[in-house]
């Protein structure tokens, strides 16, 4: 029996906080980049500048929403929605605290992987529908990058799944009550984190939107709130990456003294800061290096990790 009011409340809280956090992250990222570059960043609007995203949103809503005459109009319009929808759908399976999850699916991990694969479509058809060579180059890169990183993203997760013995994310968190999976699954964590950075198009894997090379990559032609949707979608996928890393490898809501949701939020915040720190520090990969790195180093690493984990789990079981 599903308690509808509880579910509706959970959906409202998770949806609301995801969108708010995605907006706040834009401000957080700009402030943190400022701090690490010895400047201030946006600090004028509201306390510490925290209303900057609100102002940006008002600005971006009132901007001209230009659809280029040479673009494939229907696809062009749908694409930004796909980014946000897939990212938000993935949050349906994220267990924030015990019994605080929209859909406690038995195949939560697979659902997450499926949604992140669907998100790849938005990048690909967004660049294709724009009918612009830079957007096209961006989406070409995105195809190669997302397809290759998708593969070992799934494989690197399987170690955690094997240890927990379940695809259910709540069960995976529950299995980490005594030991976080980052210790037995350190390489799995590394592979997953790298693949997640590539999926979220973050430095050092932000080739699809390399602004130094491709104008803005696959969303060069987008303006107004359509561009804003891509932006929000990107920040949602960073949130999702941090959330999934925390759930799969860092014990989710487990932690002493504080309430579970607070622990979850704190750990997520740590990863968000780490991702921004990586952006502030590391340069972008060259594209061929990216694929070489993906297929020749991370992929074998993930496979070996899976093989060893599986072997040890079997050996312990017998």
């Amino acid at each position, binding site marked *: 029996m599903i308690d509808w009011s509880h579910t509706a409340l959970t959906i409202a809280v998770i949806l609301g906080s995801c969108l708010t956090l995605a907006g706040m992250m834009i401000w957080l990222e700009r402030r943190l980049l400022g701090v*690490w570059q010895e*400047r*201030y960043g946006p600090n004028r609007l509201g306390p510490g500048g925290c209303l900057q995203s609100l102002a940006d949103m008002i600005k971006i809503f009132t901007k001209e929403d230009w659809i280029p005459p040479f673009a494939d109009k229907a696809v062009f319009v749908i694409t930004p929605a796909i980014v946000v929808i897939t990212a938000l759908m993935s949050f349906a399976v994220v267990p924030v605290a015990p019994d605080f999850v929209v859909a406690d699916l038995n195949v939560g991990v697979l659902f997450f992987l499926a949604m992140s694969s669907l998100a790849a479509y938005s990048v690909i058809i967004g660049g294709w529908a724009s009918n612009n060579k830079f957007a096209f180059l961006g989406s070409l890169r995105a195809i190669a990058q997302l397809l290759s990183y998708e593969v070992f993203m799934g494989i690197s997760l399987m170690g955690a799944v094997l240890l927990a013995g379940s695809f259910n994310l709540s069960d995976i968190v529950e299995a980490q009550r005594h030991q976080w999976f980052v210790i037995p699954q350190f390489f799995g964590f590394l592979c997953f984190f790298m693949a997640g950075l590539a999926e979220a198009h973050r430095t050092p894997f932000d080739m699809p939107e390399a602004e130094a090379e491709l104008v803005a990559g696959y969303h060069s032609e987008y303006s107004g709130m359509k561009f804003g949707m891509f932006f929000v979608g990107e920040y949602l996928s960073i949130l999702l990456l941090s959330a999934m890393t925390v759930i799969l490898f860092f014990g989710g809501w487990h932690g002493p003294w504080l309430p579970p949701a607070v622990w979850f939020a704190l750990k997520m915040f740590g990863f968000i800061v780490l991702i921004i*720190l990586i952006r502030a520090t590391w340069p972008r990969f060259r594209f061929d290096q990216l694929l070489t790195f993906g297929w020749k180093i991370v992929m074998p690493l993930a496979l070996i990790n899976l093989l060893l984990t599986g072997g040890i789990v079997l050996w312990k079981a017998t």
Partner: protein
Amino acid sequence: MTVIRYIRDLLLGLWVVFKRTFTTPVTVQYPEERPYLPPRWRGRIVLTRDPDGAERCVACHLCSAACPVDCIALQAADNPEAHERRYPEFFRINFSRCIYCGMCEEACPTNAIQLIPDFEQGEYARRNLVYEKEDLLISGTGKYHDYNFYRVAGVRTLDKDKGQGANELPPVDVRSLMP
């Protein structure tokens, strides 16, 4: 071993950037916190006056000739109320062109045109950047408080004879051999 070095360098980079969290930004928060501008800083252009309160400008056109971007326009006229001395009938500086090079100030023989340390000239309409004489003329002496061109000029003028100017020695009697 190269791999280990790469990883170490990457992590070291993260640490180096992270250490910046504890430094203070170098940014000057401009409207609240204003930088010190030295008196010779080249900003807005003004026309100054004598210690007596008369206009210094003698409309010699040297500033507009020296101006590399031709942003100064003026027209000379004779002033019947002040010994028929030349003065600018209009004096116009187009600040949307001005490059604040200070060549006009260097060219000016009477220290009339001066650049002052004020740079806040933002305007919404471009035509508001064209300053007329009444916008340029200030009531003070600018950087040279005691300077009065007609008092130091080594020639006879209507209100002083030769040798009567400020810091001026009496004229030498060229027919005398005495030192």
